[in-house]
């Protein structure tokens, strides 16, 4: 299958008073048409910056320092802002974390969705635009769209706002949808609805989705593939089944063990000790070594390469080296749920 989006050895640096923050370090992955890829990691691990780099929406102090972004086989790494504008919305769209700040509070919802349509088709007649807006609102599950066309964001609840943001993102039939923690600001019940909506849209329109989250529990519902990020790097990537039932990286183990759902009856929740390292001067060896109870001597000397486990499953840990001692994963398999 031809990859819709291909990231090759992407690195992003951000200038800060403390020095250059290496937010994304040497990340490579592919996104196939019609799949949901989830990127999971703690805050500060570079997952949002990765998304922004793909859309080229980096802050002024940020810069892509190496690697390539291939969309539909075309290298867009050096595209100018003008060229990117033509792609945004059409090729990829962004759903932000906080729906309140993503919407303009002074413009009715319907008009904001219409605006997103008109950017790419400025000559579309008014009536057709209106009909498109209504069908988009229906698609994302906003009931009574005719009445709600004229309502303002403050009339909407959090879940409805997030639906509106998704309608705007889907306005020009993008091939890729980047959703940056779309449910973090929402309640459990609404969260489940939005995740189902994401899946439904992906089935209906065949949109490939990159879903960014910090919660492995949330991701299980709709991800086809999962990538675990730590300190600016992807440390494990595989299909959802492989990641949940057969995790290989100690960081993935730690993330899963800290979920209360997997700790039933246990006296204390397992935690990952310590904090993620600063990315101003990231260690040359494995960045997770200090927090890793399974760390080997090797982890303190050299960055582990990506070891292949199956055709789709890769993990960067020295534990997978043939010379390493065998460690039984503390979690995984279907028995633990």
């Amino acid at each position: 299958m031809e990859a819709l989006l291909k990231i090759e050895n992407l690195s992003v640096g951000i200038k800060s008073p403390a020095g250059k923050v290496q937010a994304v370090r040497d990340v490579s992955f592919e996104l196939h048409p019609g799949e949901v890829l989830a990127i999971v990691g703690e805050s500060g691990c570079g997952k949002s910056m990765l998304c922004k780099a793909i859309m080229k929406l980096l802050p002024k102090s940020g810069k892509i320092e190496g690697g390539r972004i291939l969309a539909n086989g075309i290298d867009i790494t050096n595209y100018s802002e003008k060229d990117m504008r033509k792609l945004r919305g059409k090729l990829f769209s962004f759903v932000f974390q906080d729906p309140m700040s993503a919407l303009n509070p002074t413009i009715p919802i319907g008009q904001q969705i219409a605006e997103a349509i008109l950017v790419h088709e400025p000559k579309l007649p008014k009536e057709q635009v209106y009909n498109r807006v209504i069908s988009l609102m229906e698609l994302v599950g906003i009931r009574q769209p005719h009445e709600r066309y004229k309502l303002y964001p403050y009339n909407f609840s959090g879940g409805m706002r997030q639906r509106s943001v998704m309608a705007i993102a889907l306005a020009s039939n993008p091939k890729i949808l980047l959703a940056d923690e779309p449910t973090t600001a929402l309640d459990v019940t609404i969260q489940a609805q939005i995740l189902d909506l994401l899946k439904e849209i992906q089935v209906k329109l065949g949109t490939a989705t990159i879903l960014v989250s910090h919660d492995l529990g949330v991701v299980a519902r709709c991800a086809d593939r999962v990538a675990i990020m730590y300190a600016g790097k992807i440390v494990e990537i595989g299909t959802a089944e492989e990641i949940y039932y057969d995790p290989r990286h100690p960081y993935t183990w730690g993330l899963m063990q800290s979920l209360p759902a997997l700790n039933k009856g246990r006296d204390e929740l397992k935690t990952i000790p310590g904090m993620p390292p600063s990315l101003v001067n990231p260690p040359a060896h494995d960045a997770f070594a200090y927090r890793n109870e399974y760390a080997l001597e090797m982890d303190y000397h050299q960055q582990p390469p990506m070891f292949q486990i199956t055709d789709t499953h890769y993990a960067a840990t020295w534990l997978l080296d043939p010379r390493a001692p065998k460690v039984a994963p503390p979690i995984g398999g279907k028995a633990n749920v």
Partner: protein
Amino acid sequence: MSEILLDVQHLSHMFRLSKHAAIQAVDDVSFQIKKGEIFGLVGESGSGKSTVARCIMNVFKPTAGKILYHGINVCDPKEFRRNHKMLEATRQIIFQDSASSLNRRMTVADIIAEPMQIHRIKPPRGSYRAEGAFQLYYVGMDDSYLDKYPAELSGGQRQRVAIARALSMEPELLVADEPVASLDVSIQAQIINLFKHCNRDHGHTILFIAHDLSMVEYLCDRVGVMYRGKLVELAPTGELYANPQHPYTRALLSAIPIPDPIAERNRPKTEFDELSFDKDGVFTEMAPGHFVLRKENNR
């Protein structure tokens, strides 16, 4: 254990929006918290759980109802004034957003010592600074943070400082209003462990407010479910999760994400029909300790 510390009776709170409009944020809520237990309060945003917490802490004055703490009605100004020292010293609250609940112009050491200074409590460990260092150590941070400002800390560290400030008073009742909602999963686990430790080793009674039901299941002894200002179900945790009675509780429980892709994809979800919600039900005891809001006539 069975001594009742906090008794909330028919609590109602209404926010006046204008002359003609008002929001009934809390509507006739009654529950009791026993000494030494962790009581969870869950519900979607806007269900009134934070308002209940703030009424208990005397931040809001309830429109109707009584809150008895150690038998003292904290809503009655006269009774409150007579006992205000005890009330202020033994009840502490932790807010959801630690970025706005800590004074950004004070150092961590000052923030932690402030409640003790206000109540003129002699620091048991010699100096306020030593006390600050001890409390920080207790919540899992070292004393190098004493001279830092909240802006220099990460979200998880700030939340710990807020907890250290509340714990410095050795409170009998700790009200935690969504203390982990804004934190990462691995940090959440650390904070939850801390609460569990406080409760087990120091006997603090905790009112834990959250919308993450898996956390509540793990942490709390008893859980109350709120919906639109009403308490719709109240039961011991195991009982509630195994045998939910109210349709809203069922919908809420079915929305908890489970970290298992195959099971999760095939799991049916229960939707809750807003229109079917009956505000005028009666809080009935279905099983010992298990209360449900339901219509009187279908008993």
